């Protein structure tokens, strides 16, 4: 599940040269999609055009799938230009429920260690490709990740503040390759739950 963040009236981070996060991530998503499909993944995007589904709508698309992994793409307005970071959700207290269903507002909790594995795989590849990028995934309370019941990471690229848009565009193939190869390396370690919404 590939999530180009923001969209519609939500432009995301805005650079001085008229660069909008929502536009760039959509273009990046196209390249990431191609790279993932080349690795044998079936890819679904949370948005194809200039729409802005809610956080819950995006999570719901992933949560309805069986064996999905979730990658949300962001461009920051800070950070060293030409670097990229991977975030996984903060440690959360897993919900307990008599029915065995995962609580919606803590959907990511049972997937925390899987998300960490996926995040570290992608981070390591990004660090090799983009000097100055952290070699391991970092944790942050990313809203989009919290309600996603799947191994989920946020990839944030720096930054919209570059003077020349080409500086960001040049990163797209490397970002796509790192995500696709990281996901491929993660795949054998992911024991897929038998039903959507089940604990891994």
């Amino acid at each position, binding site marked *: 599940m590939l999530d180009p963040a923001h969209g519609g009236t939500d432009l995301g*981070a805005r650079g001085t040269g008229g660069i909008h996060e929502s536009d760039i991530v959509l273009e990046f998503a196209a390249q990431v999609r191609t790279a993932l499909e080349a690795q044998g993944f079936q890819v679904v995007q949370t948005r194809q055009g200039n729409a802005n589904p809610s956080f819950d709508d995006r999570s719901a698309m992933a949560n309805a799938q069986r064996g999905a992994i979730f990658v949300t793409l962001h461009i920051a307005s800070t950070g060293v230009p030409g670097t990229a970071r991977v975030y996984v959700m903060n440690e959360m207290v897993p919900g307990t429920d008599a029915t065995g269903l995962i609580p919606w507002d803590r959907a990511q909790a049972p997937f925390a260690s899987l998300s960490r594995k996926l995040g570290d795989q992608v981070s390591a590849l990004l660090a090799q490709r983009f000097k100055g990028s952290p070699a391991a995934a*970092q944790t942050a309370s990313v809203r989009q990740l919290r309600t996603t019941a799947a191994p989920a990471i946020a990839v944030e690229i720096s930054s919209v503040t570059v003077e020349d848009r080409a500086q960001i565009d040049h990163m797209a193939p490397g970002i796509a390759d790192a995500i696709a190869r990281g996901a491929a390396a993660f795949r054998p370690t992911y024991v897929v739950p038998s039903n959507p919404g089940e604990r891994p």
Partner: protein
Amino acid sequence: MTPRWRYWFLGALVLAVVIAAIYLPILRRNIRQAAKLQQRSEEQARRELSQPTVINPSDPKVKAKLFWASGADDGTLSAVNVELPLSSDPVLRAKQVLNTLLAGPVDIELRTVPPDAALLAFYLLPDGTAIADFSEALATSIPSGIQSEQMAVDSIARTLEANVPKVRRLKILIHGQEVETLAGHLDLSQAFLVNANASAGPRAAVGAGQAAMALTLTPTAAPVKLAAPATKP
């Protein structure tokens, strides 16, 4: 209608269109200015009601630990010791350290929160839950992004953690309202756990990842089943 009357009618119509073309942009500008003034005066009223807590020189001077950016460009924070007269009352003390944090470090490059952000109110519930209400500028003036938003929240939470031991959890409001995210990325719908590792004490320099370990999200709302989310879908 005779041709003469038709000319008069058309003339009046053209005149009305010309007047409207001149007057409408002025009217629109006036409406926009009035809306801005109203918004500003509401914000001003809130600020006046919650005047920044004045540091009382008679309070004992202590070394307060304030967390600003380390300057390393990697999202890390650094603790800075500032000698401040701090009240023993936890609410006043929290307001004093947060207002000092908002005032910013000497080096403006190390700021973690926008310069125009203000603390509008601060409450401490008996169970240790702190509610910090910030002005809209905290959300609207902060550089958008996971790293920058995480740094802002980390610096607020860690500053409270280091200086106000009674605070156990932190809920951030923007202009008196609960918001889903700070500026499109960082989750503010839940409370942050503060002082989880009180015995370990604050670290001198913490990365975003490390800080997050101490800022485990603690869901406060009753859990909602995956099959029936609280809002959409």
